[in-house]
């Protein structure tokens, strides 16, 4: 690998990790769509700040972006508080409004500046290595790596310091308020972090990938664990792995890197959705099938136990009787009887099914439950 490739991969992994941390809390707070809104509207903050400082590399741009990110949240909440508009509708109203103002400003006033809306949506991580951080002529690597590294550290430190507050305010905001931990403060703090992360990340990877990296990995991690610290860790790992996988996918297909990374996040999520050990679709389907067979076997055993030793036993215990009695299709009925026989629960004698002692015990246990 060339050093430029290493730089791209490093930036991608750091971006993915930085996005996964606030993303985990967004997913748990059911605010996923807010990341979509913020990752676009921060553009307005960048544009406005750029008009003030006239420098595309000024840190003021990040501040402006964070402020407009918060403004987005405030406007959405103000709209939904009127009771006339639902929150998702409010997001759908605020986000295009702010974003389109930014697009108009760029296209009419900043036509000759390197700020174009294509780059905002998709980013161009491939250029990240060419924009170097070189104070006093010493090359210290891509600027994007430094910016995102700082944001990742901020996110890690913020989560470590305020982990208990974030957890409490996410799970039970009312208790947080009653105990004196202002949920509003925590909420806006988190939204500021989302805004800063989005603006730092989208210069490198664009707003689509920011959304993908904030929501996809936590959504997948949520299916894999039921502990919050592990969910955070897994989100980071899944995000970073998707970033690396997406990079190689892009090389393979000779396609846009950010788009490929977002695709990789989608593939990772689908794999987890299917294959998660407990909650995955495959595991769930297998469990349901298993339960269906177990239940059918228990019905058979209980039926035999009920009629055991009664005058009707001869009639009730014929194998073909089960199809009519339980309304089982013939082949299903045969398989239930076959597996129960294989498990040593029943025996067939003179065209009659008889419980073994083991089968009697299981029938009794099933009936009690």
């Amino acid at each position: 690998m060339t050093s430029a490739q290493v730089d791209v991969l490093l930036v991608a992994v750091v971006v993915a990790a930085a996005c996964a941390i606030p993303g985990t809390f967004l997913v748990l707070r059911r605010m996923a769509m807010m990341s979509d809104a913020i990752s676009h509207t921060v553009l307005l903050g960048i544009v406005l700040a750029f008009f003030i400082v006239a420098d595309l590399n000024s840190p003021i741009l990040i501040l402006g972006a964070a402020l407009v990110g918060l403004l987005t949240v405030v406007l959405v909440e103000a709209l939904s508080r009127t009771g006339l508009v639902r929150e998702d509708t409010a997001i759908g109203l605020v986000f295009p409004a702010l974003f389109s103002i930014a697009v108009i400003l760029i296209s009419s006033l900043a036509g000759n500046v390197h700020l174009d809306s294509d780059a905002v949506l998709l980013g161009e991580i491939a250029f990240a290595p060419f924009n170097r951080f070189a104070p006093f002529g010493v090359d210290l690597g891509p600027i994007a790596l430094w910016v995102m590294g700082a944001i990742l550290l901020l996110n890690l430190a913020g989560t470590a310091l305020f982990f208990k507050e974030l957890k409490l305010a996410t799970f039970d905001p009312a208790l947080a308020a009653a105990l004196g931990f202002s949920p509003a403060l925590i909420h806006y703090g988190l939204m500021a972090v989302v805004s800063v992360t989005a603006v730092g990340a989208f210069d490198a990877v664009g707003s689509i990938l920011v959304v993908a990296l904030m929501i996809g990995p936590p959504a997948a991690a949520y299916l894999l664990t039921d502990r919050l610290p592990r969910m955070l860790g897994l989100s980071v790992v899944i995000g970073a792995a998707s970033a690396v996988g997406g990079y190689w996918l892009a090389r393979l297909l000779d396609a846009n890197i950010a788009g490929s990374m977002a695709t990789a996040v989608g593939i990772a999520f689908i794999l987890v959705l299917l294959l998660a050990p407990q909650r995955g679709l495959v595991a769930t389907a297998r469990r349901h099938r298993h339960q269906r067979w177990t239940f059918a076997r228990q019905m058979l055993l209980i039926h035999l136990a009920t009629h055991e030793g009664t005058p009707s036993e001869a009639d009730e215990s014929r194998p073909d009787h089960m199809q009519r009695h339980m309304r089982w299709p013939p082949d299903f009925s045969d398989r239930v009887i076959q597996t129960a026989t294989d498990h040593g629960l029943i025996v067939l004698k003179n065209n009659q099914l008889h419980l073994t002692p083991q089968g009697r015990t299981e029938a009794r246990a099933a009936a009690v439950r």
Partner: protein
Amino acid sequence: MTAWLRTGDPFAVQATDLTLAYQQRPVLWDVDLEVPQGVLMAIVGPNGAGKTTLLRTALGLLRPAAGEVRIFGRPYAEQRRLVAYVPQRGSVDWDFPTTALDIVTMGTYGGLGWVKRPGAAERSRATAALAQVGMQAYADRQISQLSGGQQQRVFLARALVQDAQIYLMDEPFQGVDATTERAIVDLLRALRADGKTVVAVHHDLQTVAEYFDQVTLLNVRRIAAGPVEKVFTEENLRLTYGGRVAGIGGRGNGTPLDMSP
């Protein structure tokens, strides 16, 4: 030890002239609430009567349009360590990725303040509180795997760990099994024996007289309040619920209650 109890303050919770409205519609109208220390008080009233709103206002979660709430004679913000809160079970997301013990540990956060993390001492207090509600075996369970009654007991344990003087509970008996109902009643009595004060929103009129000493009948306005045997009468219930309320077990030296279904 009793610095929180200003001498001559007869009430653990005292709300005066509380008025609160949602978009011009009054939810609480000039409501007084007086809860003496060491009693179990039920707040009873029809749906939309403002019961939950009254609790949430007492907790400082809602700002009243008029009136004030005092906890042992002082504003809630100065006394929050003295008040524990058991919200309605349905008010939180039980799919949240954490354990029963972790939820109970949240009750210690108020004492810790910002940034400081719960340690071994907090966890052992939480474990003890779980044991107190008979849930020690479920400490490491993911909370969505608990039954409704078990979840309610986890919430009670979380309030116990706050080691408060006043417990405000929003429908602690709602949708729980008989075991949990028993456990909650025992717990309420143990709290009273320790001199603690409990205010609970309660729906089951049949058990008000059995479980509680005092009752506040609420329907936007306060209809009546005081000892159950004086206040919990058919007359007052009719005023509260509007119309005839049949089949309510209760005592009273007012009109005898109609016990026929």
